[in-house]
């Protein structure tokens, strides 16, 4: 939240950032990066031909 609220004014109702949510996000980010390392060398696209070109070309 500190990244969102900038300036020197005072808000009427103070907003507290949730530590729990922040922790979840970091965990998700860690897991996403970790799982990305398990990826292959290239992609596979289901139901596309072996060799093709975009339709409008």
């Amino acid at each position, binding site marked *: 939240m500190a990244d969102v609220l900038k300036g020197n004014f005072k808000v009427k109702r103070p907003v507290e950032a949730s530590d729990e949510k922040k922790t979840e996000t970091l965990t998700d980010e860690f897991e996403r990066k970790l*799982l990305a390392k*398990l990826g292959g060398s290239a*992609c596979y696209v289901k139901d*596309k031909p072996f060799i*093709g070109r*975009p339709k409008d070309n």
Partner: protein
Amino acid sequence: MAISKKLQEIIDNMSEATFTRFDDLWWDNTVGNVPYATRNILESKLKREDVDFSSALVIANGPSFSRRKSLQTLKQSDYKGLVIAVDSVLGTCLRNGVIPDCVVCVDPRHRIVNYFGADEELDKLRPEDLHYYQTRREETHLGDEPLVTSRSNKDLLDNYGTQMIALLSTSVTPRISQRCKEAGMETYWFNPAYDDYDLFNSFTKKVYDLIPVPCVNVGGNVGTAAWIMAHSAFEIPKVALTGFDFSYYPDTELEKTQYYDELVAVAGPDDLETLLPRLTNPNTGEEFFTDPAYYWYRQVFLELASTAPCTTINCTEGGIIFGDSIVEMSLADFFAEN
């Protein structure tokens, strides 16, 4: 075969994981390859008219390739069909007097240039890459001394480059394009399909607009890409495979498998086995273990093989590629018949 929930989750996420892993690198490499990508893979058949196109042999770098002495079997044969090698096995072939007709490369990482012979200054191995090569010897074929092997690969490519052609993905590091040019090796290009190129906002379409060469659904890895080149670019009706394990022999130390560090981080050392399923090859009776990426490659390969315009003959003599769409045969028997 029942697999763990975590493994299934990883496999279901594999395309997305691959995208997250490489997307910026894919784009940067493609931009760097614009000056080199002047010919496309469908023109490559004309270049290799010296070859008998009734059959092809695709060489991948799985452990059976050395354990079954497949290279010696090939060397002793009088095989006249098309020989396509994946990048990581090129140096091994050349060191043993076998010159493939084509080499295929898909992986975008800079370290792959070592298979074509790296420049010791321009391509200095990062410490983590050096660690990878030194600890995963069985899988990489750069051996105990990766820099020495890379130096040898450079000399070999410089000597034999004009006798081969390279089928390159626009995603590979431009250093490989430069090495091929230096060695006099003609390059033929394709875009790997990253996503559905007929949908709005497709990354593949963006890449295609930059380099308008055919898009190939490479199936996740270079071995599958090489098999696709054989049947769909060269239109060869009978394609044999060797070194297509997508798995490890049971005596392989876990630390030497390709994703060991990452799998330990995901599962923890105690639950590691849940991410390494075991399959028994019905043709050899041996049990092999695999990892999430290889298991995904296998699933994709079998799916693709069921619709392929060729007969696929697995001459690996090990590994986990078996099923209704695959003919099993020893490599020696394949050579006797072709």
